[in-house]
């Protein structure tokens, strides 16, 4: 919690324009700054960026936690159901399809968000339809991955035929960015993430039982298919929204739940879920701070930083599991 506050503060302070420390303090306690440029930078760029780091970090981590529990697979993440592939296809269609057909009005910022959301929710519908019919969780996992791969293949085709300029915008989108969400869209982003988080919180207790085994959940009177339906719905809202607004951000969703489990040494989701949200927000802030390269005007792609930070965690988990089981 403290880390979140400190990191938020550091995040506000970093960027290509350096802002004096007293100004920053004054801004945080709500005073208007003497320098209108600094006021503008903070209010319209850094605050939205910080808030979207909170939202994306929390959303991806919670949805990763849900997937790891539901699939009882330590390497599951927010994207195993193919949500981000759906979002990518939506964005690719808008960026490259628009240039191909000469309709450019869609390719604006809002168009991209809308396209990504549509893509993510179409995949979600497919997954939900499957989840109410198929009982075996491994089959659902495989189908989810197959959907994702198929959708990615279509995206690949689009990329192949896309124009150079649209290809570049698409690649930049896939690199992830926290800065693209203006204040006007932030409320929508926040509303959707909060909806997803509330839905996740409602299903905390069933998640505990589901983590032990489906038969246990069913003989304890839980309706496993219904639980899965709503957990998938929650995950898709969280991961889909985060992807739509910030692009696909890798590894946060896989690594953070493990960090939290290691730190709290419990499988009680009443603890894991809020902890994942807070740690996720903090970790993404940290990634963003590193990506800004404090002291320089350069900004690195967020996704690369998130991967470079997340991969060691995943490797550690794989090796540790090996040692435990062997």
């Amino acid at each position, binding site marked *: 919690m403290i880390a979140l506050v400190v990191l938020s503060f550091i995040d506000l302070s970093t960027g290509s324009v350096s802002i004096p420390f007293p100004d920053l303090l004054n801004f945080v306690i709500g005073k208007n700054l003497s320098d209108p440029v600094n006021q503008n930078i903070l209010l319209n760029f850094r605050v939205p960026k910080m808030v979207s780091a909170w939202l994306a970090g929390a959303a991806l981590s919670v949805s990763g936690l849900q997937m790891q529990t539901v699939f*009882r697979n*330590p390497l599951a993440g927010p994207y195993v159901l193919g949500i981000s592939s759906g979002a990518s296809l939506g964005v690719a269609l808008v960026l490259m399809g628009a240039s191909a057909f000469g309709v450019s009005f869609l390719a604006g910022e809002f168009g991209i968000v809308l396209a990504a959301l549509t893509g993510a929710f179409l995949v979600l519908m497919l997954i939900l339809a499957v989840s109410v019919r198929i009982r075996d969780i491994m089959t659902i996992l495989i189908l989810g991955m197959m959907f994702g791969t198929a959708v990615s293949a279509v995206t690949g085709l689009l990329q192949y035929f896309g124009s150079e300029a649209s290809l570049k915008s698409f690649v930049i989108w896939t690199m992830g960015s926290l800065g693209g969400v203006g204040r006007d869209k932030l409320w929508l982003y926040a509303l959707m993430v909060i909806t997803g988080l509330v839905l996740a919180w*409602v299903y905390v*207790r069933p998640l*505990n*039982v589901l*983590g*032990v*085994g489906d*038969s*246990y959940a*069913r*003989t*304890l*009177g*839980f*309706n496993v298919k219904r639980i899965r339906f709503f957990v998938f719905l929650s995950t898709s809202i969280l991961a889909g929204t985060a992807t739509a607004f910030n692009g696909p951000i890798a590894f946060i969703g896989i690594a953070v739940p493990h960090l939290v*489990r290691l730190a709290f*040494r*419990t*499988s*009680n989701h009443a603890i894991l879920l809020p902890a994942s949200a807070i740690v996720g927000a903090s970790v993404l802030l940290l990634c963003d701070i590193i990506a800004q390269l404090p002291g320089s005007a350069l900004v690195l792609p967020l996704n690369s930083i998130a991967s470079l930070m997340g991969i060691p965690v995943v490797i550690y988990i794989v090796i540790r599991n090996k040692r*435990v089981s062997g």
Partner: protein
Amino acid sequence: MSRIVIDIKGLVSGYRNGKNSAFFYPAFNSVALAGELIAIVGRNGVGKSTLLRTLAQLQPPLEGTVSINGSDISNYTTAEYARLVSFIPSEPAHASHTSVYEFVCMARYPYRGWFESLSNEDHHIVSRAIDSVGMMKFRSRYIDNLSDGERQRVMIAFAIAQDTPIILMDEPTAFLDLPNKFEVMRLLREQAMLGKTVIISTHDLQTAFGLVDTIWLMLANGLKVGAPEDIMLTGTLNSLMENTPVYFDLKSGQFVYRHHTKRLASVVGGALYVKKWTSHALRRMGFDVDLSGDPNAEVYVQIQETEGKVQWIAGKGDRNPTFDSIRNLCLYLRGELKGL
């Protein structure tokens, strides 16, 4: 006679594969009483687990009905059913970072609402359940770090904490060593003595026959019900081993592997129990054993006891090779005779 708790009528359990092909087991009727400890016994694939899963309402019956306390099981809500029947599947519960205590706490969920936390009474019940299976000092251990015997005791604690009049367990004694098998059966017997109906499936005939009230013997052509002794005396047990080289020897109370060699060995002298185990060794080597001194026997073993020392003599005369252990006797016979 005790009260009937489970009443099964014309039940066909099984799996439906697709629309046309159905895969099920013969219909049967049976009842389970309050306080009865029942073992379902049968060959692999005869449908023991399927029957238990049907009773646990994890899959619907294909035909027939099951009623509990006089009401068809489909009339209960899932929450009511969770307070009526606990089912421990054969696949162990796996969850990283879940302590024994946290795990057993889950068994109280059917008594609490969606957001209601467990009451003090719930925590008492959980502690008592863990204590009653002797796992109190393991309460903070992770369930993934338990031995098979410890885990199975935790599973029983789970069923106790769920506090249901019916406990179903799929193969509770699989993978356990002998003392743990008996311990698990003792704990289940304890639950039955409290008036609960306990139904388990098992391949472990020796433990089951020693400790349960009733055997449900599932055969390819239907179900046979009886006390373990009834099942043995009526020879029903041998229908379990039809078309196999194994049979149940009523006299010795043991399962015997039928050899194809028809060779006769005769054992004479010595105390009854020494004769019994000497015969056991000879049977193991493929002999039929005669205890009356048949002159046609291929092998003749005399047992002599002098000053508390037992000796085995191979052959009829006095100057025959003498051995101080059954192992040495067997090694000698194996060297002398062909085809052993």
